[in-house]
């Protein structure tokens, strides 16, 4: 029972980070049908920003601001220098463009800083433990879940209540119609990238608090999981991204913890099993859990 609860908390912790990233991916997909493989690089940008911030005597209290600001800036910048110029191209071209950016980002960090990991100190309280009814929790678990919950709530409010959020949702439904209603394409798309950047920034904060280090390719693993989460949920669906992220996080953790019990010696194949399940899921339901109807006229 303890083991189960503990792995559920762990799974939700990882899953909520996936969810934040998947939300950004699904948001961008909604406005321009781009599966942004460069989205994970925003974590890397955030991590390096905090590394440099620390080098120059920064403190943990300002860190979130620095990380989120740098991620927002980087996100908007990628749209400005790259995606804007291929906006009307095929999804294939868009996807490869984002892939190229991801590769370039890796290369640039390797060249400008170092291919090796750069570590910086972590806040002292992160791995402090406390107990509720015999189950020990890390402070970070609680912080992760609380921060994610607040961010998701804020996201919901923005997209339900503000003019910006409504424009973005309108653009995701039908871009041309939204344009005719006076929505400005450039502003909406820039705004969506900024918002996705902020979400990635929050995720980056949570990630570097646990393991405070910057590395050129650190974004890629997170990105892959986040893309898969977004596609599982149904690209373009906000609820789907959150559900997809949480499910993937739980699946990750539970398979690692429980697979050895189920089948002797299979623990080393836990990732393989997760990916098999994912592949099987896509065979059965290619559009994801929350299918988004695309108004394609024939």
């Amino acid at each position, binding site marked *: 029972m303890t083991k189960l609860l503990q792995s559920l908390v762990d799974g939700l912790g990882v899953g909520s980070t996936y969810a934040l990233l998947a939300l950004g991916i699904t948001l961008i997909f909604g406005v321009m049908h781009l599966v942004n493989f460069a989205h994970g690089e925003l974590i890397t940008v955030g991590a390096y920003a905090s590394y440099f911030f620390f080098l120059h005597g920064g403190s943990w209290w300002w860190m979130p601001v620095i990380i989120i600001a740098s991620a927002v800036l980087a996100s908007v910048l990628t749209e400005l220098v790259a995606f804007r110029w291929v906006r009307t191209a*095929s999804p294939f*071209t868009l996807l490869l463009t984002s892939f*190229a*950016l991801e590769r370039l980002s890796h290369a640039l960090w*390797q*060249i400008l800083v170092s291919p090796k990991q750069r570590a910086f100190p972590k806040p002292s309280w992160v791995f402090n433990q406390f107990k509720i009814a015999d189950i020990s929790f890390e402070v970070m678990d609680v912080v992760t879940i609380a921060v994610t919950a607040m961010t998701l709530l804020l996201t919901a409010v923005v997209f339900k209540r503000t003019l910006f959020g409504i424009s973005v949702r309108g653009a995701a439904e039908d871009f041309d119609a939204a344009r005719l209603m006076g929505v400005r394409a450039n502003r909406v798309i820039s705004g969506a990238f900024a918002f996705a950047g902020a979400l990635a920034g929050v995720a980056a904060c949570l990630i570097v608090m646990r393991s405070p280090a910057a590395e050129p390719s650190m974004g890629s693993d997170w990105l892959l999981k986040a893309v898969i989460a977004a596609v599982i949920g149904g690209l373009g669906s906000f609820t789907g991204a959150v559900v997809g992220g949480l499910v993937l996080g739980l699946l990750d953790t539970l398979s690692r913890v429980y697979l050895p019990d189920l089948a002797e010696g299979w623990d080393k194949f836990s990732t393989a099993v997760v990916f098999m399940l994912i*592949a099987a899921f896509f*065979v059965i339901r290619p559009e994801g859990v929350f299918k988004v109807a695309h108004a394609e006229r*024939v």
Partner: protein
Amino acid sequence: MNARAGLVRITRSMLASAVLIAIVAAMATAYTRTGGASRQSLIAEMLSNFILVLGMQVFIGNTGVLSFGHMAFAHIAAYATAIVGIPLVTKAKALPDIPFGLSDVYYGPLGVTAFAVLATMIAGAIFGIAVCRARGLAPTMITLATLFVVEQVVKNWKELTRGAGGLSGISRLEGNTWLWVGAFLALVIAHVFQETRIGRFAIATREDELAAPALGIRLFTARYAAWVVSIGLIALGGSLRAQHLGSVNPKQFTLDSSILILVMLVVGGMRTVSGAVLGTVLITAGNELFRQLGDPQRLDIERFPDLFLGGAMLLAMLLRSGGLLGDRDLAGWMRRRMYRPPPTQAVGERVAATNALAASNIEVHFGGFVALDGAGVAVRPGEIVGLIGPNGAGKTTLFNVITGLVNEQGGTVMLGERDLSSSTPVDVARAGLARTFQNLRLFKNLSVRENVSLTSLVAGRHRRDRQRPDADALLADAGLSEWADRRAATLDYGNQRRLELARAAALAPEFLLLDEPTSGMSDQETLAMVESVRAVAARIGAGVLVIDHDLAFITRISDHIVVLNEGRVLAEGTPTQIRANPLVAEAYLGTSA
């Protein structure tokens, strides 16, 4: 006759392959003459990449489905090579617990390659079912998952793979000769595939995922064929590389190498074999240049080639998303130069169209919205029926129900005695209903002639009871002969409409279904369209069901008119009767005048 055409195609592919490989060989010789022996190993690396790029081209280039997982199969092939290509004594030491009685299997180079390719193709054929069944982004995700599954199995199935350390001691192929042979073979296969019926169908699905099935091309079959051939080439590349290096390890074919190969493919131009070749040569050369520039004695930049790869891919996408060559292709050029119109077929007995098309009591709901509420339409053989109605009346939905794009909740669609209710678009097309689309769905990057020839090819297989219309004659009728070799996308709007009509007619259908063929046309063009539709229908002996807003066009062209309003049939009759009907005027003009 057919055998001769096949021979021509193979000769052409061999010739194009020979020219391309000769160019690459000349460049390689010039490069190795001027430097040391180390240059030979760069050529070897390029050659095995060359085979891998061509393998990816066969699937990605022809179907337009992005795959990250091809390197998983290179991995499988490399390990299969190691398992049967390491001499027995060495193998007993490295893999003491090897399962499946593989401990005493050892083949020569040819046997090893054959075993590796066959084993990999079997694995590929199984994974391929999942990849080719899925739509949208799902296939890409499945290939990505496959890559990780294989990577982890390779790392952890120690009895078979010896885990992280990899396997060495594979009997090596000396020199680059076999790599050259493999590269040539890969070139020929990639070329031939684009000439085969199924290869051309795969290309059609790349150009339009919706139009291809609506013309009788089965998406799964075309993609699956491309996938299996493609995996075969990947296996060849993986196996030859393992035999050249003499060792394999789990880091040989990862996501990074998938991306390297992908960059080679997209920079040169994934749609053509020539593009794949150009990309391989350019990226190999650029990579090497940046590696040397980043050398500690020069600029001293570690990982400089990574910058080149990312930059090259980004520039290619921003500036030329079709790659440097786009659709330019040596084999394609030869095909056009060598084009001889097929001899006109002896006019056989034309089987008169005897089947009527009847959709009746069709009901369709989208959520709570009732799109069709018992509407129907009937067309007699050879008759031209017009379907009109205000926006939202359900005209296109009725069309989509008949052609299998929308599933009806009630009612039947019959073609003669055959029940087409709830059939797939492919089956509807093969049964003899050919359609056009409201917003034009041509195979844009293909030539005007190929657009028509493709459906003619479907007709040759699935519409045997009908006389197969001659593609060139249809083009001549449409006034498009002059532009037969141009890309379809470069035609002006009116000609694109006429091309879509000709393409549908090439299916030798019993009925042509035209969705707003005059939308966006001037009055004069509309008049000309009336003549075009009549001429085409008469040539192939087909009936026509046509939707349009334009009352003048419909009354001019139709023998019989059906008026839809709010999902129901409001009125039907001859053009004269419809013009006189007060209900129609009300629905159209919103007055009871």
